[in-house]
């Protein structure tokens, strides 16, 4: 194994904390893979060997797990890994165009990294933010309501090292490796930053407040909507 003693000591301390969380050690495999990814930026043979040794598994067993999950990368990605959702809603609303224009703008294909190592690009499946379509993710933080222009600007800022703030997320966008460390189980200090919710999440609540609509007080009965309730309910 080619991890240095210093790296090993650090990994061992983190791994011990992760494994201790679980009633059975093997449950720690996914977090441990995030941990080795945070160390090297991807899951290397060394990383696999490390996880296997920690949990008493074969390297083949661990490799089989790594290959199943799309978030584990088997080769280095950019310091900022950019995903463009092209599942149907985002794709139709412009995600397909954004992805195509970013390919051109960055000069990289799907799952490729810019020569400076700053930005890699992939298309994403639905990332649970459809009311903000088209959606992009950078290192798994939300960038909502994107356009081709805002996407190019974002890519340029990431390459230039300009500060970038996710739409619904912390003030400081973390690097790919820092993100992997959070996934492994170790929070940074940014949990309380950013909004509770974005504007589209509050649309219904705002309308309800404007109309004075609320859930009933406990004790007031007989609220069933009939089968053909649609009109009488207002």
């Amino acid at each position: 194994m080619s991890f240095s003693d210093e790296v090993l000591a650090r990994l061992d301390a983190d791994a011990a904390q992760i494994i201790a969380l679980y009633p059975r050690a093997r449950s720690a495999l996914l977090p441990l893979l995030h941990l080795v990814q945070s160390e090297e930026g991807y899951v290397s043979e060394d990383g696999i060997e490390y996880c296997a040794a920690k949990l008493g598994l074969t390297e083949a067993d661990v490799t089989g797990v790594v290959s199943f999950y799309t978030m584990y990368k088997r080769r280095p990605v950019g310091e900022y890994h950019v995903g463009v959702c092209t599942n149907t809603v985002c794709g139709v609303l412009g995600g397909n165009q954004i992805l195509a224009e970013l390919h051109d703008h960055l000069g990289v294909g799907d799952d490729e990294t810019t020569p400076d190592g700053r930005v890699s690009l992939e298309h994403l499946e639905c990332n649970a933010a459809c009311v903000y379509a088209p959606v992009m993710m950078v290192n798994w933080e939300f960038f909502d309501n994107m356009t081709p222009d805002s996407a190019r600007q974002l890519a340029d800022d990431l390459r230039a090292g300009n500060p970038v703030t996710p739409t619904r997320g912390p003030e400081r966008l973390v690097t790919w490796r820092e993100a992997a460390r959070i996934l492994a189980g170790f929070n940074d200090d940014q949990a309380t930053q950013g909004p509770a919710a974005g504007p589209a999440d509050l649309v219904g609540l705002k309308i309800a407040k404007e109309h004075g609509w609320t859930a009933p007080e406990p004790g007031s009965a007989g609220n069933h909507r009939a089968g053909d309730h649609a009109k009488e309910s207002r």
Partner: protein
Amino acid sequence: MTDTLTPVLTAHWDQPDIFTIDGYRRAGGWQALPKALGMSRDEVITVVRNAGLRGRGGAGFATGVKWNFLPKGDNKPHFLVVNADESEPGACKDVPLMMANPHLLIEGAAIASYAIGAGHAFIYVRGEVLHVIRRLRNAVQEARAAGYLGQNVLGSGFDVEVIIHAGAGAYICGEETALLDSLEGKRGLPRNKPPFPAVAGVYALPTNVNNVESIAVVPSIVLNGADWFGDLGTEKSKGFGIFNLSGHVSTPGTYESPLGITLRELLELSGGIRGGRRLKFWTAGGSSAGILTDQHLDVPLDFESVAAAGSQLGTRSVQIFDDTTCVVGAVLRWTQFYQHESCGKCTPCREGTFWLVRILDRLEHGDGTEEDVEKLLDICDNINGRAFCALGDSATPPITSAVRYFTDEFIQHHKEGGCPFDAAASTVWSET
């Protein structure tokens, strides 16, 4: 009469610090757990069962009944697993809930753990939502420090640890048995049922798996009572739920209403189809539920009515597409998703989705034939009901429903030798 919208789960999302323990307590939070701990475990299960709560993850199975399946007095460790792997195309209710109000979910998880006798609750959250993971973990730390979690919760003698477990990118892990395999550190492959998780779940021990929204609603039911919840909604689809409206609407967004609201009502609230255009097709419950059309504007969005209309309420993920949208292209993209996410365990799903994509792709690009449409339906028939898990079955409703409502459009692609639609007209910026 009940109000059109009834914010409960979403009621405090506009409070800037609702994700902190102080903010949550100021909004009335962490009051349900002490009340539940003052009840017997069976009493907690009974109130949830009497409320008529049905699972909010899509299947709609009665939550209280599910809790009751766990053996009692077996002296084995029990587990609660919260399915927070929200990945259904169109679904964006659980992720915002956990980002805005993580304590609500964790309070619900603590109560559910008490009810089923679980000493560990795992929240299996998809990995691709970093800030949600931060918020959840921070909330667990705050709740533990305040004595709501950990050993001897609030002096009751009840012990529970809540573990935030980040997935690593796999839609199949939203299937509850695949999720359990993944939680055990394996590839996320679905398991044969029976045995059901209540008998042999994580570590082959009794386990209850519930969706985020199903668990997050528990504190309000415990506080307000079964009748309060059960009086909302329809006779068989009780209570309220979160609806996400996305796509070609003037104001995409999240709405919380009693079950049984209609698309017509939701569209009125959201300003209608964008730019005065016409509704072409929509999903009631994510892509897996298949599509509906403008014939279905007045279908009450409850489990029974949507099923009677040939679709499913699913995750109440209402994706709206106007008349600029190519239905063949839309369904092709969904089908590519199912192919990509197929775990490969069973042949109908693994091979079937591969061929569905090939055929849809050539149809979309004008290289298909009329016979290809029949072939699509035949392959769907060979997947649906024959796949190992529900994910395989889920690949077929988008196709069968699209062919049912828009056969002519499939044929038109063939006759015109290509897609008759201009993709640029469907984008957000096409209107400006």
